[in-house]
């Protein structure tokens, strides 16, 4: 029988849970004392529900009262499916996303390309729903305005002191990106995605590299986490990882847990991240990705990551298990396609817990569902 995580962490335990179905990812963090943080959202293909919400409900945590911060690291499809449901459920939570999403350009794009004109894609749809929920709350609230914590490089997003603890154990979450230059590129991209008059109606297709991605640096009870989102290295010193590693205003410290960015791709790798931002031999977690012929991580990516650590895990293995349909359908498919594969062929959960007040670097890893050690991944 497949293992499912169904126990709540103790009040003193830190937990980082990474969910990934082969398309998308979601991270749930227990910051101690029943306070939770959710970073991004994906759907469990088996249940159709947002993985983060489903997990919290399964372990007996009430999202409405326990989630303190939701972070949307960017607005692309694979990182925010189901996020609007999470936003609606977590009524007491702060919300954070890239400062570029505050812009007229982004809101106009959402208004134009949301459900109203039937050109919706799930990334835009989710934000349309989140903005609708915000508007609803704004109308009902006594003080007007809804103010997310806008993420920009080196800005604190959340701080909470631990009861009875000294200042060093204050929980903190910072954004390390986007940089000012990345923000400008984001706005340019948004402007270019806005439709032109008399152009055909099509779904919005975000561009690469991803200038919106919010990298999270979190210090939870002395345990430092680096969550790399989808930030790529752009070879532009003013954007990407190059800008982060040279920043003089980012928080100090090295992470012992590293969520490897952009599914382990070479495009998101920067040597200085390994030398300056994370511990030697950190605990690494990543999620896989498969679109068309692009599968991540590749074998070379795994080898590169394993040179830095042997303590690495991945949330799912990309086994191509297709649902076979009725024979007449399968026969017609054979003639019409060169290849066809499911987007979510597997779903797994990597859970990392610390033993509380002891050495925070003693992190216990449990694997659930299709999660496996990285060196067991079937890479191309």
């Amino acid at each position, binding site marked *: 029988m497949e293992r499912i995580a169904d126990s709540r962490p103790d009040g003193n335990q830190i937990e980082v849970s990474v969910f990934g179905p082969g*398309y998308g990812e979601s991270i749930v963090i227990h910051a101690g004392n029943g306070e939770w943080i959710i970073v991004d959202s994906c759907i469990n*293909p088996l249940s159709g529900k947002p993985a983060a919400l489903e997990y919290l409900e399964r372990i007996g945590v009430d999202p409405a009262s326990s989630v303190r911060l939701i972070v949307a690291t960017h607005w692309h499809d694979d990182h925010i499916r189901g996020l609007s449901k999470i936003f609606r459920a977590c009524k007491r939570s702060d919300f954070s996303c890239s400062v570029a999403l*505050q812009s*007229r350009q982004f*809101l*106009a794009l*959402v*208004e*134009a390309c949301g459900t109203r*004109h*039937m*050109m919706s*894609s799930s990334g835009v749809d989710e934000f349309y729903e989140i*903005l609708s929920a*915000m*508007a609803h709350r*704004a*109308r009902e609230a006594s003080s*007007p*305005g*809804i*103010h997310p914590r806008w993420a920009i490089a080196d800005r604190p997003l959340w701080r909470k002191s631990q009861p009875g603890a000294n200042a060093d154990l204050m929980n903190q979450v910072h954004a390390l990106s986007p940089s000012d230059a990345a923000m400008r590129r984001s706005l340019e991209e948004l402007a270019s995605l*806005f*439709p*032109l*008059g*008399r*152009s*055909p*109606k*099509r*779904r*919005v*297709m975000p561009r690469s590299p991803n200038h919106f991605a919010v990298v999270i640096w979190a210090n939870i009870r002395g345990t430092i986490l680096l969550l790399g989102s989808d930030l790529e290295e752009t070879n532009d010193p003013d954007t990407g990882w190059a800008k982060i590693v040279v920043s003089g205003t980012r928080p100090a410290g090295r992470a012992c847990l590293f969520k490897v960015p952009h599914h382990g791709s070479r495009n998101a790798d920067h040597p200085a991240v390994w030398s300056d931002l994370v511990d030697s031999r950190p605990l690494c977690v990543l999620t896989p990705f*498969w*679109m*068309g012929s692009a599968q991540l991580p590749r074998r070379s990516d795994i080898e590169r990551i394993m040179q830095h650590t042997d303590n690495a895990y991945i949330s799912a293995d990309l086994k191509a298990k*297709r*649902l076979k*349909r*009725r024979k*007449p*359908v399968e*026969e*017609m*498919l054979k*003639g*019409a*396609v*060169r*290849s*066809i*594969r*499911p*987007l*979510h*062929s597997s779903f797994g959960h990597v859970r990392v817990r610390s033993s509380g007040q002891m050495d925070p670097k003693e992190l216990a890893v449990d694997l659930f569902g299709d999660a496996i050690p990285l060196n067991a991944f079937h890479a191309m």
Partner: protein
Amino acid sequence: MLRSQSLSTFRSVQEAGSESGEAGFVMDPDDVAGAVRLQLENGDSSATPLLETQLSTAKQKGPATSEELPEPPIVWLRTPKPTLDFLLALQKWEGTVLSKGRDSFQARLIDRNRVGPDEEAEILLDEVSEDDLPLVTPGAVFYWSIGYHTGTNRQKRRVSIIRFRRLPAWTEKELQQANEQAERLRDLLGWNE
């Protein structure tokens, strides 16, 4: 149960006004055309050139005898015609084009039967009709159905149909409305400060 004969009267459907049902199976288009022809011959002069031939032929024949024209009120008995042309879908997807190659395109497919997960496929361009080929661009939406088609000759064949969605192009007014709505939202949320 008895065999049914659906009664349909052109006038009563119009006069009822409240029925938004019984659409395609109430009026056979040929019946409608015939009903209008009868109206014209009874004095309604709003004819198109299409009907003038029939009208002038009728006039050439001389006044209609009571055997040729039924007396009003007119009742059209609808008999089921075995010549219906229909397609039953075994599987339907809604797709979005991700990229286009020389002889194929990559697409993300959502299972409209709600049976399987989303899929990605490399589909041959040969599967797309000539008229739809210019529509194969990243972001374009299409519908793909596989099923059985039975023609008016009762012959059944298995078919795969890809049809690209066609909607009116963006108008300046729609885009302006999106911008205005965005401004209102920013004001409401207090993001314009």
